[in-house]
């Protein structure tokens, strides 16, 4: 995250903590002035990124942390979710909307993220973990 994050939350890799991260995202959406619907979707996108970090990234290893940071700047609300895992193949994720994938019981998180914010980018840093950046542009 360029510059200092304005809000940062660090949790252990437990599924139970995803609700807490979601709640912080909802508050950040309110602070940023997002309309109710857009705020709901923004928070849901962050929830999905946090779930990925806890489950796929860190494999629910309690010794590994998930860091969620927010910054408001330049007309955008930026969220960054970092894990300490071995990486996740975002590019290889199948489209869950295709008929052959509709009956799969997982694999929809990335679709929700991409649908509910304006930009999703990810970077795996060997030995450090994966960083997912989600940008929601704010109306003037």
């Amino acid at each position, binding site marked *: 995250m360029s510059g200092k994050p304005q809000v940062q939350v660090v949790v252990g890799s437990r599924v139970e903590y995803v609700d807490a991260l979601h709640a912080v995202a909802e508050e950040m959406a309110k602070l940023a002035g997002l309309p109710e619907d857009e705020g709901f979707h923004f928070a849901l996108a962050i929830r999905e990124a946090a779930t990925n970090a806890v489950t796929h990234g860190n494999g629910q290893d309690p010794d590994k942390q998930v860091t969620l940071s927010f910054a408001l700047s330049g007309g955008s609300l930026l969220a960054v979710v970092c894990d300490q895992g071995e990486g996740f193949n975002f590019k290889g994720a199948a489209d869950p909307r295709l008929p052959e994938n509709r009956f799969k019981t997982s694999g929809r998180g990335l679709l*929700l993220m991409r649908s509910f914010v304006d930009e999703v980018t990810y970077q795996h840093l060997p030995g450090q973990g994966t960083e997912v950046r989600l940008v929601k542009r704010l109306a003037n």
Partner: protein
Amino acid sequence: MKVTQRSYGDVTVVDLKGKITIGRGDVILRETVQQLFDEGHRQILLNLAGVSYMDSAGIGELVACHKRAVEKTGRLKLLNPSGKVYDLLQLTKLDEVFETFTDEKTALVSFGG
């Protein structure tokens, strides 16, 4: 998430209230539907009117319930998803998988005698 059940003939209506999300709501949904199948119920109508939202884990569990129903030669249908929940079903194209109703009587009749 809170769950209550009602029966109309062979159809069990499951009223869900809360959110279907990872770690709690999805587990409750899985266990509720599994128990119904274990008890021999085969016609299930999930009433989503009280479900505020789902995440991808909750959506995945709905799909798992649907698959379990098919395996058991049963049927699982949806009733009254809220706007937010229905939007998610549309986004994921699952509105083309699940038979969904806005009227309970119509839904019950659709299971047949």
